[in-house]
């Protein structure tokens, strides 16, 4: 007779996997359920970028903490994780964006984040394929990129060594205080439940304000030495935080194979998984504007994914309002790969009632209600 798991995690993406490992390491009996395969949601689609961000103090705390945790995990990752320490290069097209680059640098450095402002000449040296005429940029050498499907798999394998179980291709209808209510009517009982289902989170628990934010990516054939960093336009931040429901931004990254990943775009509230030619092309044209040489590279594959977007672009980590035994670990938008490590710690600390290394208030799901009160 198998015992009821202490914790059931719905969602075997990288956030669910990180939480599973953390809780298993803490001695909990964990079961992970997913409607599909491991890393099948946004974790299948993303660029694998581990980066620090400063849109808000809470975001900065979470991203910095997570990068620290990644630096501790990295030496233990398998080769398939393909963790490359390429750094992020934020590109400034004009003086206004350069001012933003300097502001970020001044924010990061005193807080221990290595950062360097590059002028136009230095930018061209760092990324020769960027078009001439750009103003400069901000280099964050401690950022990196990895292949997250392999990492999610590895995290779950490690959790399984500690007694966790993983159950794929299990359709879940709802998450309740007594367990997962499966699509076939059965109830999978658990002590406490965690909703880590990303864009689908709002379909499984109430009071979970998560919307899909569709993205497209393209990968090219091997083009060694075409780009060396995760390169992003500074205007990306403007585009991702603006009220606009649809936006594209220049964003490329190298893969260890020498292939180039081309992104990025976002469409809020769109559930259609098909390739949308219009926005894909808009994204490609934006990319060519910044790196004209991309036009000559051959694209091999395109795919889509659904980020989990929240109203304030911060994740929901903590007790789910309206439930006794249900917790949320979702709403990671475009940062889920990077901050899955910090998320796991923040969730575990709350579930165990232990202190957390960073303040957790900014991620509490109840903040929405507090804001509206």
């Amino acid at each position: 007779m198998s015992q009821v798991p202490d914790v059931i995690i719905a969602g075997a993406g990288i956030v669910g996997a990180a939480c599973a490992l953390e809780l298993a390491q803490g001695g909990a009996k964990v079961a992970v359920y997913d409607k599909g395969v491991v890393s099948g949601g946004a974790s299948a689609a993303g660029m694998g970028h581990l980066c620090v961000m400063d849109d808000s103090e809470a975001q900065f705390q979470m991203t910095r903490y997570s990068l620290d945790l990644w630096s501790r995990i990295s030496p233990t990752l398998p080769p398939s994780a393909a963790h490359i320490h390429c750094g992020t290069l934020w590109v400034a097209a004009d003086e206004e964006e350069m001012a933003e680059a300097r502001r970020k640098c001044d924010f990061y450095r005193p807080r221990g984040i290595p950062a360097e402002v590059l002028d136009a000449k230095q930018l061209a040296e760092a990324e020769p394929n960027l078009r001439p005429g750009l103003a400069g940029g901000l280099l964050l050498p401690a950022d990196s990129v990895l292949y997250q499907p392999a990492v999610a798999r590895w995290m779950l394998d490690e959790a399984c060594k500690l007694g966790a179980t993983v159950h794929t291709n299990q359709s879940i209808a709802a998450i309740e205080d007594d367990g997962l209510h499966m699509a076939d009517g059965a109830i999978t009982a658990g002590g406490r439940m965690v909703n880590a289902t990303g864009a689908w989170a709002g379909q499984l628990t109430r009071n979970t304000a998560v919307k899909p934010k569709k993205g497209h990516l393209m990968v090219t054939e091997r083009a060694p030495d075409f780009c060396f960093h995760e390169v992003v336009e500074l205007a990306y931040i403007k585009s991702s935080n603006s009220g606009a429901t649809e936006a594209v931004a220049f964003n490329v990254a190298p893969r260890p194979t020498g292939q180039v990943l081309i992104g990025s775009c976002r469409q809020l509230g769109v559930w259609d998984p098909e390739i949308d030619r219009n926005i894909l092309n808009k994204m490609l044209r934006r990319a060519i504007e910044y790196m004209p040489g991309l036009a000559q590279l051959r694209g091999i594959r395109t795919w889509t994914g659904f980020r989990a977007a929240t109203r304030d672009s911060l994740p929901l980590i903590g007790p789910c309002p309206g439930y006794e035994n249900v917790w949320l670990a979702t709403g990671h938008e475009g940062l889920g790969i990077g901050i899955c490590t910090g998320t796991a710690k923040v969730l575990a600390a709350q579930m165990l009632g232990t202190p957390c290394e960073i303040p957790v208030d900014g991620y509490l799901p109840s903040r929405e209600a507090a804001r509206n009160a």
Partner: protein
Amino acid sequence: MSHRRMQTSILIAGAGPAGMAAACAASESGARVTLIDLSPTAGGQIWRGAKPSGKLSKQWFERFAKAAPERIQSARIVSAEPEARKLLAELPGNESIAITYEKLILATGARELFLPFPGWTLPGVVGAGGLQALVKSGLDVRGKRVVLAGSGPLLLAVADLLREREANVLLIAEQASSATVNRFGLKLASSPGKLAQAIGLRARLASISYLTGCWVASAQGDGCLRRVQVQQDGRRWTVDCDYLGTGYGLVPNTELAEVLGCSRTCLGVTVDDLQRTSVEGVYCAGEAAGIGGVDKSLVEGVIAGYSATDNPGAAQALFVERARTHKFAKLLNTTFALRAELRSITTPETIVCRCEDVRLSEFDAREGWRDAKLQSRCGMGRCQGRVCGPAVEFLKGWKSSPAKPPIFPARVGTLVADDEVES
């Protein structure tokens, strides 16, 4: 990069027998026809190189020359906008073209099914059809020792060509059993034309060893093929050779149809009796609509051509002939169905995905195609799963994911070349 646009009435994708036949029928009906193909010449695989050798191909090439449809050669269709009735193709020399059509006939043919076995990635191991294609495009095989292995009448056709070109065909290894092959031979008696063909072929190949229930278990060599290990009835022996032509049947090329939104099954694109697909204005004929041989491709091509030019009467007149070819197709496919034992020729160490060097053992813990792709990168290479997908489906029973644009690898610049952009 230079980009141009054109418009046509009937656009035919694929200039093999089905495409050529459709082009003839449509042109003869008075329509403006454009034929686009990724090869430098018409004829597809079976009539490669546009040098007609048999009576049938001679007739059709003559008819095709008279029909003289507009041709776009060496063109790779990379994306499609079905609502706008537009296809985008990449051409050599950094050029691209966007073609708007009224009706589209898909005659995209088929590719070979390759089963992975130890050593199959060695240079010198080619498809059976692949070897045929190379020989027809100029490869001199005089005196070269060749083993052919796999399944189906294609092996005999290739052996015939190789014999003609003075290669030394050492062995034809057919995986189907002798009972199955003999039954096939007997059933051919009901189509005298085919029987005569078969008898003629048999006579020409009389001196070549033809073994049934036989297959190649491994290919060996240092950097290129030197010998193969052949297996029959549990016996294994070695044959020294220069080329191994191996093909285990055909897989329909349905990628363009999928991107257009056409319904399909594992057998091919779904069509009605007028060769219409589930997408309005799009037709499909030939191997892409179901493997069945050249006669099926020709009659379906003509029906599609008449159908697309609003000539249903002329199309209907060919239904009986088409039914005959479908009967033969069914016979062909059941006779040469692959035996389950062939799954054992792929060892755990065998590379299954040639583009990314993924071995069979990497699939042990995997749950399906998507999981395998994400964790091993199988199917993520340039061939976009065209080679490994059907192999993995045979070995593991996993269906590969639906095709997405770009339909073939395409320059990023090509993909945006046709966009109307406000300056």
